């Protein structure tokens, strides 16, 4: 191999190595910075739901619950919506409409999260407190989820904002999947006498099952990691509430609002412990999505 080639190969290999090192470095650095808090609190930090700077009692419990609740409800709302949109765009919409609508949905994904948060504070918040939450309270107020009085800032606002964020991601991946379903499969099903809807339900969706699962997992990953828009609308609550109307906090949004302002070393380290937990959750969802995709690829369905 000529020297020019060797050099070039070395340079690109170095870049690739640097990329891998960066990923490892981030994980290492975050855990290293959290180490003092991990040593101090141990694993009990994870289910301790107190966060009290005065008594120096810190725990991630309330925020892990917040992260799980917000992501769960967000994907619960977003997944059916996204799949429906993908179906609409691939099967049901007239051809001339598909391009523009698909573009519009993807543009929704490109809106910066801080803009969504701004809209959440100034437009969605008052609408929730004035219209939606009173309505929910009136009809479903007996459910602990919808108990309590309406509030502009709270878990429900965060859930809706996260839903708006996840839908485009899940729907564009799902749309790609639907487009790749082999014609023969679809046509074969119709030839056997099934209706269009039955073909979709019985053939297309199961065929794309793993891919849709991966898309959903990726959507959850996005919701878990979102700090800015969530911290703008979620109200900064420090105690756990049953109601979705009440203010709450997630791991990411707590980090965004507290990190720089730690008043004691222990508090700063505890926030870093939160970051380490968040990183672990985000990595787990990311890896889960990759595993699902890889398995589907092996089975030949992707």
């Amino acid at each position, binding site marked *: 191999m*000529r020297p*020019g*080639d060797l*050099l*070039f*190969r070395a*340079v*690109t290999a170095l*870049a*690739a190595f*640097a*990329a*891998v090192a*960066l*990923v490892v*470095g*981030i994980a290492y*650095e*975050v855990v290293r910075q959290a180490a003092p808090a991990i040593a101090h609190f141990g694993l009990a930090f994870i289910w301790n739901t107190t966060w009290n700077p005065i008594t120096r009692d810190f725990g991630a419990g309330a925020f892990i619950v917040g992260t799980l609740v917000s992501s769960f409800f967000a994907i619960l709302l977003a997944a059916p*919506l*996204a799949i*429906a949109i993908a*179906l*609409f*765009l691939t099967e049901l*919409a007239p051809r001339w409409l598909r391009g523009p609508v698909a573009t*519009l*949905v*993807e543009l*929704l994904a*490109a*809106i*910066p*999260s*801080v*803009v969504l*948060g*701004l*809209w959440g*504070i100034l437009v969605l918040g008052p609408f929730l407190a004035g219209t939606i939450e009173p309505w929910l309270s009136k009809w479903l107020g007996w459910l602990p989820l919808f108990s309590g009085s309406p509030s502009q800032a709270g878990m429900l606002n965060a859930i809706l904002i996260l839903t*708006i964020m996840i*839908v485009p991601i899940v729907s564009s991946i799902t749309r790609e999947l639907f487009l790749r379903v082999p014609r023969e499969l679809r046509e074969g099903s119709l030839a056997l006498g099934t209706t269009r809807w039955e073909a979709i339900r019985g053939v297309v969706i199961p065929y794309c099952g793993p891919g849709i699962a991966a898309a959903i997992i990726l959507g959850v*990953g996005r919701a878990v*990691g979102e*700090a*800015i828009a969530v911290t*703008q609308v979620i109200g900064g609550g420090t105690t756990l509430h049953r109601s979705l109307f009440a203010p709450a906090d997630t791991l*990411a949004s707590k*980090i965004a609002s507290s*990190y*720089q302002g730690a008043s004691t070393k222990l508090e700063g380290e505890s926030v*870093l412990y939160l*970051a380490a937990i*968040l*990183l672990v959750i*985000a*990595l787990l*969802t*990311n890896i889960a999505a*990759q595993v699902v995709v890889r398995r589907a690829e092996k089975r030949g369905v992707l």
Partner: protein
Amino acid sequence: MLAAVLAVSVLVILVASVAIKAAGAFSWDFFTQPQATFGESGGGIAPAIVGTIVLVFWATVMAVPMGVLVAIYVSEFAGPRAARTVRVALDVLNGVPAIVVGIFVFGLLVVGHGQSGFYGSFALAILMIPMVSRATQEVLALVPRSLREASLGLGISRWRTVVSIVLPAAIGGIITGTILAVARAAGETAPLLFTSSIAANSVSWDASQPLQSIPLTIFTYSESPSPQDHQQAWAAALLLIVFVLIASVTARALFAWRRRRTGVDAGQP
């Protein structure tokens, strides 16, 4: 169906409310003046506009060469295992929350040295690299093998082949990926929260000092009680949305144009 209508209407409502509320704030002052002193009205976001331009510029300078080089390694030189490792690493990097990236850069660089625009750009670059790299990989994979083999057959060295033949064929996809990464970086707030947030209220092109940025300005104004601040936040948001829209449309147009020219399906950006 209902779902698509819902999604599209949310987008329309979003953009419309931003546009309507922003209307009053647009003025020459908005684009040229720094923030008003506490309690006074008026002022603008000129330092933030310039800050975002500078921050994104340096982030692009850091991210694009890195992303392209990594993609070249994976597509031209790496064995299957190495390629898979790098691809997995980049996917994982893509999944790291932006706020954690901000903490990483803060703990690594800012502590002890102070904030700086370069650190902010570095944090943004970390977010951009997976996007640029993935776009480059996809488009490199589409360059026909025959092109490379013909070039090597003619006795041209490997590196020359890549630089003068393969890359130019892929340049459209690389630019598309870069534009989309730039659009993302321009709108990110979390990485800048800890790396470039304490900035002077004057226009500065100097990246060695912390710089203001449009997303951070929107963030701060969004929580303020003052209606003037809100209006400026809406206007800044409109600016961002318009920029992102133009970038997306440009990227799409480039992709479509290249597709027509080369007849190659260069993959969805």
